């Protein structure tokens, strides 16, 4: 068996391949001259199209099912009353939107308070991220030793961020948690919060903002580092020769050159601030007494914490209002930054 079989597979494997090569070669040598031959290039092109479409089909189908379908479904739902069970939706037109904006007095006060908190977060988180990430990136790019290690250390919050980290933060910020302990043992007891940082209305929202910044800084720093590496060293060298110090170089050369990256970071920050609500849900659930309530969390509560009442349409309408607000802000933000370039 060993004597005869090795030859056979070898013969089988090469023959079709050779035939293919020959066919292709002959096709190239002999241009179409009518009849069946004339249609061959067209068929080949169709075959290639079909192959191409077959390859992209899964992605397109996935997008149609998971993306487009859900978008259309969600948008339609925003004009209906539904609790997720009944066979039919009750169409209510734009009432969900009107209820959220002014018509329903039980929704308005909470929503306005949440919108205000969201606005604060939306301004503070992107600005805070830039304020921390840019100096950090400049410092990291200027040192030679331990740069890789430090980069990894500063990237840790991003790698580890998520629900587990939020729970860890809750523990850290408790009345008897490590932060209060550290403050009390280092003579900064007046800064400690006896109720903990999340239960105190004065510190709850600022604390969440700091954690959001902490989570956003790694990616922003990486983006800035990439931007810094793309700056022509000759430009920086020329500035130094002209007598510009570090601060002046950063302010007048690096900052303007990194403005597109800053735009991207700000836009990402605005997006996270308007649409992200997990941190608020896990750490405070909008409390104490609504002091950390945000619109994303309101939408989540409307969808899943109303005792199966038909509020999915309201939640969806709120989601779309958040989307439109975020889109408008992103456009305005981008335009403002472009105009100052």
């Amino acid at each position: 068996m060993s004597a005869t079989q090795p030859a056979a597979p070898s013969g089988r494997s090469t023959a079709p391949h050779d035939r293919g090569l020959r066919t292709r070669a002959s096709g190239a040598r002999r241009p179409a001259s009518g009849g069946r031959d004339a249609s061959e290039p067209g068929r080949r092109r169709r075959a290639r199209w079909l192959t191409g479409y077959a390859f992209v089909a899964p992605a397109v189908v996935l997008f149609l099912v998971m993306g487009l379908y859900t978008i259309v479904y969600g948008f339609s739902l925003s004009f209906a009353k539904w609790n997720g069970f009944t066979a039919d939706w009750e169409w209510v037109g734009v009432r969900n939107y009107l209820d959220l904006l002014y018509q329903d007095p039980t929704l308005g006060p909470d929503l306005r308070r949440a919108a205000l908190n969201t606005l604060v977060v939306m301004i503070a988180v992107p600005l805070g991220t830039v304020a921390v990430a840019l100096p950090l990136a400049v410092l990291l790019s200027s040192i030679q030793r331990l740069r890789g290690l430090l980069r990894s250390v500063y990237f840790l919050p991003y790698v580890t961020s998520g629900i587990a980290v939020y729970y860890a933060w809750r523990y850290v910020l408790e009345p008897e948690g490590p932060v209060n302990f550290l403050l009390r043992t280092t003579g900064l007891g007046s800064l400690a919060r006896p109720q903990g940082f999340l239960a105190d209305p004065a510190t709850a929202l600022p604390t969440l903002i700091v954690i959001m910044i902490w989570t956003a800084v790694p990616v922003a720093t990486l983006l800035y580092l990439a931007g810094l590496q793309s700056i022509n060293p000759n430009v920086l060298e020329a500035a130094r020769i002209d007598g510009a110090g570090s601060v002046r170089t950063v302010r007048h050369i690096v900052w303007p050159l990194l403005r597109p990256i800053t735009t991207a970071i700000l836009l990402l920050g605005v997006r996270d601030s308007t649409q992200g609500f997990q941190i608020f849900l896990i750490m405070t659930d909008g409390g104490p007494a609504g002091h950390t309530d945000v619109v994303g969390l309101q939408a989540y509560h409307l969808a899943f914490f109303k005792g199966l009442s038909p509020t999915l349409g309201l939640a969806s309408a709120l989601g779309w209002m958040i989307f439109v607000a975020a889109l408008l802000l992103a456009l305005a933000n981008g335009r403002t930054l472009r105009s100052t370039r």
Partner: protein
Amino acid sequence: MARAGSRTTHRVTAAVAGLLLALATACGGSGGDAKSGDGGAKSLTMWTFKRTHLAALQQAAEKFRTSSGITVKVEAITPDDAFTAKIQSAAQTKNLPDVLEVHAGGEDFRIGGAGLLADLAGDFPASKLARFLPTTREAGLVTAERQRQITELKPAKVGNLFSVPFTAGTFGIVYANRQKMQAAGLDPATPPKTWEEFVDHLKATTKADPKQGGLSLGLKVSQTGYNWIYVQLAYAYLGKERYEALFGKGTTQGFASPDGVKTLELYGQLTPYWTPGATALGIDDADIAFAQGKSAFDVGGTFTLAFLSQNGMDPKNVLTFPIPPPTGGKISDLRLAPLALTGLSVTATTGDKDAAVKWVDFLTSPEGAGVFAKGSLDLPATDLGTQAEALIGSDLAALQKYFTGPPENTFDFAATSFRPPGFDDAKMGPALLKLSPLKESDPAQTGAQLDAVLAAMWKVSS
């Protein structure tokens, strides 16, 4: 050449089609309805939203399997929002289980109103409902009044029964750590008789242990203070009529009235004694804090004992009593009517309604309820009568003594007809939190805020 190209195309198309088929198969759910298992044996699936019930339900299922030959697979889906989302998606894909444990008096009506629950009226006639505690018997019954209150019930018929009571109990039960009481010089065997005594107890335990001698409650869920302390306190002080008047439409006897402000003042007396960080504690967090000795008192419901026990608290170290009535109030011996907390429903899509009903029947029989109660330390809605202590143990049976008393002294949490339709207790919580523990508003301001919230609810309902 053309054939080769066409073959390639076919192969690619076939591969893509296979991939899509696999994807579609993966996306498709597996049915959760009753099936015949190996050898033709029947099997059922059941979902519960209470993790603390899982082990006890499994024990009961094992007993049921022995007697009936029907296997029941029980699955706990927590937290509540995950349970809600799971039911919603399962309803869409027609993958609901055979039996659901749901919040009674709300979820059952909304799911049933959508046609997803079987009508159990024929399977549980009045004679069979008599096995339950009187105030819980009709918890799952569709009445004209309930149809008026819950719009999703409109497609249902008066008389439909969408759930039978499973666990019963009430809110407003205080749990005290006997050791901490003793350390504070208090009698660990005697509960405070009045609200003022309770506040004095809190003062004593907080003085003895300023960091871990206070009152824990999951105020992160803002309405717990309202539902578990305030309403019982206000009812005891004002009595039924004046209490209900607080919620009236366009009333002048609302929360900003002298009656309302007085009750808010009483509630505000708790402010110095909350355990640090109470507003950031979830309900479970607060119970765990108490079980770990981080507070001297904890407020919950009859169901809290199970959770405390599961978290290492020895029931013998716990003294329980209902929210004590204030001195000079209308009621001096407050009793708390048990309400059905959870109910059992059979889904309309079950493949074997008879088997599902048999399982529900077993779980609510004295035998099944006893097995469940012993395993979960939760009170069943089944009236165990004189057998209670033998079936569910002395700790749990002791909680039942707060259920009985003269009707005029009994606060019934389930009586809600005086409130606006669509009443949302989550809207009441923040105002009360601002009063205590946050001290952001005084009782008069809080009363005005609560009146405004109620006025908005009345407006929406009209």
